[in-house]
């Protein structure tokens, strides 16, 4: 009897795996692409990173049920599903990035460095080096995302602990502070030495400012520059109904991608980018009315997207498995909106923007959809109804694309074959 039960269980598992393979783990993909559910319910998986051996590390927003917050996943038998899953660390956070045998991970305050051995197993799980410490984290936009350039510099997002730098955050009628004092220690990207221990603010450099919050960022090896995705501001209509209707507020401001160079200013909190006027518009907290322009010294976006979709990961595709069109282009994981309510939510997909010679060479498009698990073209009305929310991206050594999700705790593997 017990044997029969075991056989039935194995059969069920086998069938569900093959079903998952048949229906691409529930994802809708362009022709020729396939997806598998690489891992499931590992915890609130934020960013992911992959070693040259194909070992994946995921950073969890909170420790999972086993109390671990960095998860190591390996697919030893190469069937597209992780078969060896272990973990360590007990601090929540978003950022994780591997370079050779150096594995960087972040809490909301610090950046840590772990060492991997030849098998990409962590050598010092309990005693990482502290690379940066004491970064500001005040609940809102507290997570620290990281990436590295070719010279071992680590770029850290320090999000603004505010919506629009009002004297009183998110209070109707409260004016914007001038100048915005938050920008001294947050609301930008800071650059630190990736090898030096115990750095604090003074050891780093404010590389770019005027960014409300960045979660997705990547170093583009073709342009040799940093690209980031900003999370645009919220609640224009809640605070300024005289200038913005529900419908306008749902569409404003654009979610924006920027190419950043040393010293750049993106303009938050003084301006936001309007995707219809295609202009930097003065924030109402600073005297704007939805039409007045501002931000003369602020840079323009490289690409802009519809509002509030929450871009949580950015990845420039350097592999050769995908068709030529994808080479050097940008994948963006849109976590999905919440503040378009009462209108239907948007995002909950992975988008793609083609690039040529370091510049966008075409319109953005949806690459992978269906993460919400809703049937057909049904839109997410309430965020908790979305089964999965794309949050992290990583490229495998074979050129496959991995997408992590912090709602259900899954990792999808997307591959292409002719």
């Amino acid at each position, binding site marked *: 009897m017990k044997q029969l039960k075991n056989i039935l269980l194995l059969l069920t598992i086998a069938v569900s795996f093959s079903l998952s393979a048949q229906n691409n783990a529930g994802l809708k993909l362009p022709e020729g692409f396939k997806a598998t559910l690489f891992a499931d319910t590992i915890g609130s998986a934020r960013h992911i990173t992959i070693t040259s051996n194909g070992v994946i590390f995921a950073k969890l*927003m909170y420790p999972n049920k086993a109390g671990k917050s960095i998860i190591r996943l390996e697919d030893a038998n190469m069937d597209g599903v992780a078969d060896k899953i272990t973990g360590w660390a007990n601090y929540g956070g978003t950022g994780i990035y591997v370079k050779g045998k150096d594995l960087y991970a972040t809490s909301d305050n610090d950046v840590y460095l772990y060492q991997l051995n030849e098998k990409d197993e962590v050598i010092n799980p309990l005693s990482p080096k502290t690379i940066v410490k004491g970064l500001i984290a005040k609940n809102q936009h507290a997570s620290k995302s990281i990436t590295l350039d070719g010279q071992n510099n680590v770029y850290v997002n320090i999000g603004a602990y505010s919506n629009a730098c009002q004297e009183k*955050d998110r209070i109707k009628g409260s004016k914007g502070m001038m100048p915005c004092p938050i920008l001294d220690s947050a609301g930008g990207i800071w650059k630190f030495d990736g090898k030096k221990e115990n750095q604090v603010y003074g050891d780093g450099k404010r590389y770019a400012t005027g960014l409300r919050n960045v979660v997705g960022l990547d170093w583009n090896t073709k342009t040799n520059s940093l690209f980031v995705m900003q999370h645009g501001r919220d*609640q224009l209509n*809640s605070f300024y109904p005289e200038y913005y209707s529900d419908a306008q507020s749902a569409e404003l401001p654009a979610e924006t991608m920027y190419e950043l160079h040393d010293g750049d200013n993106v303009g938050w909190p003084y301006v936001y980018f309007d995707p219809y006027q295609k202009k930097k518009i003065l924030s109402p907290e600073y005297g704007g009315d939805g039409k007045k322009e501002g931000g003369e010294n602020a840079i323009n976006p490289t690409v802009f997207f519809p509002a509030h979709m929450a871009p949580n990961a950015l990845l420039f595709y350097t592999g050769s498995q995908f068709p030529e069109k994808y080479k050097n282009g940008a994948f963006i994981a849109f976590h999905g909106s*919440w503040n378009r309510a009462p209108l239907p939510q948007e995002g909950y997909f992975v988008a793609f923007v083609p690039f040529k010679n370091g510049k966008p060479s075409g319109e953005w498009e949806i690459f992978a959809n269906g993460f919400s698990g809703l049937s057909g073209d049904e839109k997410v*009305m*309430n*965020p*908790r109804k979305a089964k999965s929310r794309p949050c992290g991206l990583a490229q495998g050594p074979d050129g496959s694309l991995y997408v992590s999700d912090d*709602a259900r705790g899954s990792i999808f593997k997307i591959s292409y074959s002719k």
Partner: protein
Amino acid sequence: MIGKCLVFLMVFLLGTKAIVNAQDLVKGKKLYETRCLVCHQADGGGVPNMNAPLDGSSNVVGNNIARLVRIIKNGYSEKIALDGYYYNNVMTPNPDLKEADIANVLSYVRTSWSNKASKITLAQVQAALKKK
């Protein structure tokens, strides 16, 4: 006859009270839609990791009315642990809301979706604000 009249009067009074209450809930819903819905969502489900849910929330249906009244009035800016999850977005204060408005919107959220807690009276809100 007098007895019948009394019964009639009582039914009439109770009926009026029910109507008034229903109107309060309508007002509460209206307030919810203009002030609360964008963050707490139409289904009261909130936003994972950001905005706390109201539907099924042990705080919302709980007995600490004073705390609920104060959060609506003064907002909330700490990370909150609720029913095993954390939420970190700022709750906007509503200093301009009248006591009756607070009673109405609280009554609405405590009796909507899967919530089946008691409605909140004006007297409860006044008592809560006196406590401090």
